């Protein structure tokens, strides 16, 4: 079953008097349980593609359908709800809230999805336990290693059980061991029926993904 289907996505930025095409006519579909890696050099349009898939950046033309819902037909004000419902994000720089503990960082997403109080706290604990951070629930990001931060980030992305995980360079700031641990967790997430799209330069992810597509000058070439 297809989780996300992007059809003929094009994004054109206007810079001064020139139109710059960041992504051109890109089509991509992923099935539930599948991990797809989008690889390409810097400036090839990977982040732009990821932003359009994640309901953050409106494409100039083309459509994105997640779980049967045509995302870009929605009103701009409805996009936060779609992101809450369908997408879990993992960022290269983790983007954890420094003032919150590991558990609270996960709880924030659960709160946004309508789960509050003890139930949210319990669920955050369960998710962090799943990524091997049960002893670190009350640690703040500054007290966690890079690998641990990324695992909190994965737990956060899994919060609320979204069908799609979008990961931006999830292993870029990690050593081999931590990178492998992160990919194993993403593999587990996919095994539970989610689609995972990874944007990366890192060839170490190759053994963990089902499919790799190449983005060059805004075009998907393989």
């Amino acid at each position: 079953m297809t989780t996300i289907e992007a059809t003929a996505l094009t994004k054109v930025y206007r810079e001064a008097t020139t139109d710059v095409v960041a992504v051109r006519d890109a089509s991509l579909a992923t099935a539930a349980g599948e991990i797809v890696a989008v690889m390409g050099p810097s400036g090839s349009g990977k982040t732009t593609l990821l932003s359009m898939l994640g309901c953050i950046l409106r494409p100039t033309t083309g459509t994105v359908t997640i779980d049967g819902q045509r995302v870009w037909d929605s009103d701009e004000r409805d996009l936060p709800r779609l992101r809450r419902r369908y997408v879990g994000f993992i960022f290269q720089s983790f983007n954890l809230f420094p003032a919150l503990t590991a558990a609270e960082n996960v709880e924030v997403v659960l709160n946004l999805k309508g789960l509050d109080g003890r139930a949210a706290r319990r669920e955050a604990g369960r998710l962090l336990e799943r990524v091997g951070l049960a002893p670190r629930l009350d640690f703040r990001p500054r007290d966690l290693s890079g690998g641990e931060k990324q695992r909190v980030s994965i737990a956060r992305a899994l919060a609320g059980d979204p069908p799609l995980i979008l990961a931006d360079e999830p292993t870029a700031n990690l050593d081999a061991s931590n990178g492998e641990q992160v990919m194993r967790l993403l593999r587990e997430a996919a095994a539970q029926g989610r689609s995972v799209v990874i944007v990366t330069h890192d060839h170490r992810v190759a053994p963990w993904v089902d499919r790799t597509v190449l983005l060059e000058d805004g075009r998907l070439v393989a």
Partner: protein
Amino acid sequence: MSVDIARKNLFHDRTRFLITVVGVTFSVVLIFAQVGIYLGFIENASIIIDNTDAEIWITSKSSANFDFPLAFDERRLAKVKEVPGVADADYLILTWLSMRLADGGSEAVELIGFNPHTGVGGPWQLVEGSVQALKAGHGLIVDESAFPKLGALRVGDLVEVDETRLRVVGISRGVRGFTTAPYVFTSLRTAREVDPRFRDRTVFIVARVVPGHDPSQVAERLRALPYLDVHTRDEYSLKTRLYWTLQTGLGVGFALTALMAVVVGTVVVAQTIYTATIEHLREFGTLKAIGATNRMVYGIIVEQAVINAVVGYAAGLLITLLAVHSSSLTGVVMVVRPPVMLAVFIVAVAMCLGAAVISVRKALQVDPVMVFRA
């Protein structure tokens, strides 16, 4: 309950929080001080009017305020008493004189001559002596608030007012005037002896109305009398307060300082909230990316502004109340009552919310795409 990002972020950076709260506290204390001292001054300005058991005050035409009245013919009293609704009326004299001090110096005083048989216009609280003792003549009641100027007088002491020797027969409490000259009280008869200009003249006629009659209606009837101004107690109190507030620049001075306090507070709070917002822009971007709405984002900044306001206000109120407590020792009267507290609280919250406006705009402009930049 949800994770309170606003509170967590605010308390996470304690130094910044402290700076913001100090800014709000400074502002709140300054506003309280300005408003409190102004109210203290202005309540003192009409303290005799407000505490005199007479609903109607009659003065000469164009008598601007209580402390600088003009005298008029005392024969008007009979006409006043004839007006329906007037139960009784008395003369009341106020004159500026000089009192010789024990150290040989002298001090200006405002001598009030009143009818000791009715007590109308006299002191309302005595800590020593009695009003009745004034009936014997050549007696004087001094307020304890005047001791720093007149010396620590006791009942039985002899003093000299405009070369007339008077004996202190009472010590009053709570009669602190607006001007630098303390109020001292004597009988009407003695006042006329000390200052013969008032032998057949009076400064005020103070009238009580028959119970059940409306003082405003009785005052309206009295306004038919020529060459006099007639006020109800509240009207005359307000007239006196407005005179000092508007005619002397006192009100403008206090208002400008209070306004400066609001401006300084707003700038301090705006700077710290704005810096904090800029530093947390990436977090706001992340929040938006994971599904927070704009409303949730500005809710965080608004909550932080309100917390700053509440904590800063509480600290400011505490300092103010301590100042009010000690103000009785310094001689400065600060009036801080619940309505003033509420008003300053509203100003503090409005100030912090106003200061947060730029930050809210900045946070709302954050493009969640920024979260993908390393």
